[in-house]
């Protein structure tokens, strides 16, 4: 009797939580702003600048989405979320979308009942070494001491990788990236390993960045992307196609600066994308006709957002690498917009 009562209560709670996500777009429009979950602080991806403004790669994606919905990139409330509370905050409806450098994995997609909208950054585990170690490839690291954060997937990846390649290593366990960095600089380990984007972010502010090297090998797949709750496919479509539109815009060469000069273009896909033709494509998902025009206009195309936050302008100097468009040797590829 008692048990069934508790179960019933839980079921009711689950039901109401499910109802909250029924028509996210309507909720967002009624509220007048998008609630976007971002990291409390991830270099290049999300932070707050000296003037208190939210900036970052994930932040710019949310601004593009808000611009698509409202025509106003500032209509976003950024909810900072630590990795401990991010998924529950999304599931409980505290945020409409989570753009928080989150790795797309099978169990997060299925067991946690979330829908990943695509990949906005292909990250992966890398290694940083001092240049005077004379190492130019991860495969030369046999017998090295490695600073590694305990209890993370990077620790498991490291063990697998060295085992596969018949190499040995000596782990120097650390609690977080900050400690890894300190240990590495103090000479406690030959190399330290974490996500390559974090390594690049760390390297630029070392005392002498040129004395350090991020090795070219990436030993794990960490595809980062925005995600939403299960149960609202229309909302997922909107988020997915805003992301795709940014990628397509880069392919086509549509930038924040030149976006207004595409009115006479002979490319039919551009007109469909920007809403400058006869077709109102965005009506299919209940968005304004020029939604994607506004989204691209907000912070530029994918390449511009990348450059402003993760590239040289953003002060982190990450190479495009695999995150380049497929037309330029990367693996960034959007389905056609038709």
């Amino acid at each position, binding site marked *: 009797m008692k048990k069934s009562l508790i179960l019933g209560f839980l079921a009711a709670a689950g039901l109401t*939580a499910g109802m909250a996500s029924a028509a996210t777009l309507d909720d967002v429009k009624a509220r007048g702003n998008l609630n976007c979950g971002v990291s409390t602080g991830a*270099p290049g991806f999300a932070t707050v600048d000296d003037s208190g403004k939210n900036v970052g790669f994930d932040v710019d994606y949310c601004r593009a989405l808000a611009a698509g919905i409202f025509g106003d990139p500032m209509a976003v409330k950024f909810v900072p979320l630590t990795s401990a509370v991010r998924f529950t905050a999304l599931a*409980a409806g505290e945020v409409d979308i989570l753009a928080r450098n989150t790795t797309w994995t099978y169990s997060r997609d299925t067991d946690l009942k979330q829908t990943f909208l695509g990949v906005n950054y292909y990250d992966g585990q890398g290694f940083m070494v001092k240049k005077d170690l004379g190492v130019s490839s991860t495969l030369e690291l046999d017998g090295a001491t490695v600073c590694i954060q305990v209890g993370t997937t990077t620790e498991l990846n490291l063990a697998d990788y060295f085992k596969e390649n018949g190499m040995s290593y000596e782990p120097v366990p650390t609690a977080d990236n900050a400690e890894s960095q300190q240990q590495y600089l103090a000479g406690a380990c030959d190399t330290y390993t974490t996500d390559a984007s974090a390594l690049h*972010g760390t390297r630029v502010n070392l005392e002498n960045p040129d004395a350090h090297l991020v090795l070219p090998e990436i030993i794990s797949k960490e595809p980062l992307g925005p995600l939403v709750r299960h149960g609202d496919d229309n909302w997922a479509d909107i988020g997915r196609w805003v992301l795709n539109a940014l990628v397509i815009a880069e392919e086509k060469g549509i930038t924040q600066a030149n976006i207004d000069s595409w009115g006479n273009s002979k490319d039919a896909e551009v007109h469909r994308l920007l809403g400058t033709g006869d077709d109102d494509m965005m009506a299919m998902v209940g968005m304004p006709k020029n939604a994607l025009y506004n989204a691209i206009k907000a912070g530029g195309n994918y390449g511009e957002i990348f450059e402003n936050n993760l590239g040289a302008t*953003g*002060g982190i100097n990450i190479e495009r690498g695999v995150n380049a468009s497929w037309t330029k040797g990367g693996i960034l590829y959007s389905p056609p917009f038709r």
Partner: protein
Amino acid sequence: MTKIAYVREKGIPPSPPPLTEVGIIRWVRQNLFSSWFNGILTLFSLYFIILILADFIPWAWGGHWQTKSLRECLDLDPNVACFSVLTARWKQLLFGLYPAEEYWRPTLTFILLLLSIVPILVPKYLKFFWFSAIYPGLAIWLLWGGSFWSVAIVYIGLIFGFATYVILSSKFLKTTSMALSASIVLTVLFYLFFSSLLVRFLSFLLPINLPFVDSLQLGGFTLSIVVGVSGIVASFPIGILLALGRQSNLPVIKMICVGFIEFIRGVPLITLLFVASVLLNYFLPPGTNFDIVLRVVIMVTLFSAAYMAEVIRGGLAGLPLGQHEASASLGLTYWQSQRLVIMPQALKISIPGIVNTFIGLFKDTTLVSIISLRDPVGLASTIRADSKWNGIYWELYIAIGLMFFVFCFGMSQYSQYLERKLKTDN
């Protein structure tokens, strides 16, 4: 007459004490080199202090304050501190992401806080207690903004309730308890049906509004103080009630109090904060916007109330049973004897423990960074995520640590002052 050759008429003037028994030398001999073992310890300690200071002082003294990024600091001189991060971010460390043009509001709130505790602390100013009573509402309105009347209505309701009680008990209803229950019912009805109408009417008549500030924009030490002070203020009365309840003769009250105290003490604070941050939203109807800071304050209050109850119970246990019996024999009721005899003595004994709990609570507020709130510690990692300041550790943490030290040291000094002041034994 024999002539006495010499009679001393004045005492010898006291000669100055030997050089080794005065001033600094005496102090050093007594305190630092009283035995050979202590002497060695002193030398060792001095060595280590000098070792640390020799590194720290040049590092801190020559620190950069005006550069635009860590990169610039490193290019100028990598071996000294880069305090520029504090120059660029001190406002955020104090106010979080509070809108810059509204900084006067948290500042004023803090100054009023200092004023509002004066009547509680200094008996001479007890007549200004009304200000301490209205302060919580005033602080909420100043920090979060919105219409003045939507906060004031809470007080208006209380005044309304009190007025109905006075009128009913003097004119119409004979017994106090009947008048009390009737006025409570009327007050609840007032809040439920009449308050929103009255707020609208008053706002129309005399609109006093401040721009609304979202809870997510609260941060830095403003957030620490908001959470810490509200927790401290609210947990104290709850703690007293729990301590009394635990000693109650009524089994139900006793069981509830014991159960609550033991449950809360058995659970880490961070668990309660996680419940506040992620679990509560599952159980609330969709669309309810239960403010995150309010949720955290409630959890922190419950947590410290349990500890407070045990500290006060220690004070109660320290009183001889005779005090209870004596007050009963004077014909005092339970509440009278608690108020006039028991509590003043019990609380006095508990002061060190109470302040200990307060200081602990204030420092525990840094845990909210784990549930994503931007307290100073949470802000430190946000600041480091800016590529301009990525890699700064010591400067930020030293500054935050110093601020916390100032607050906690102030509280502990105050408690010692209070103990001296309330000292009644000979």
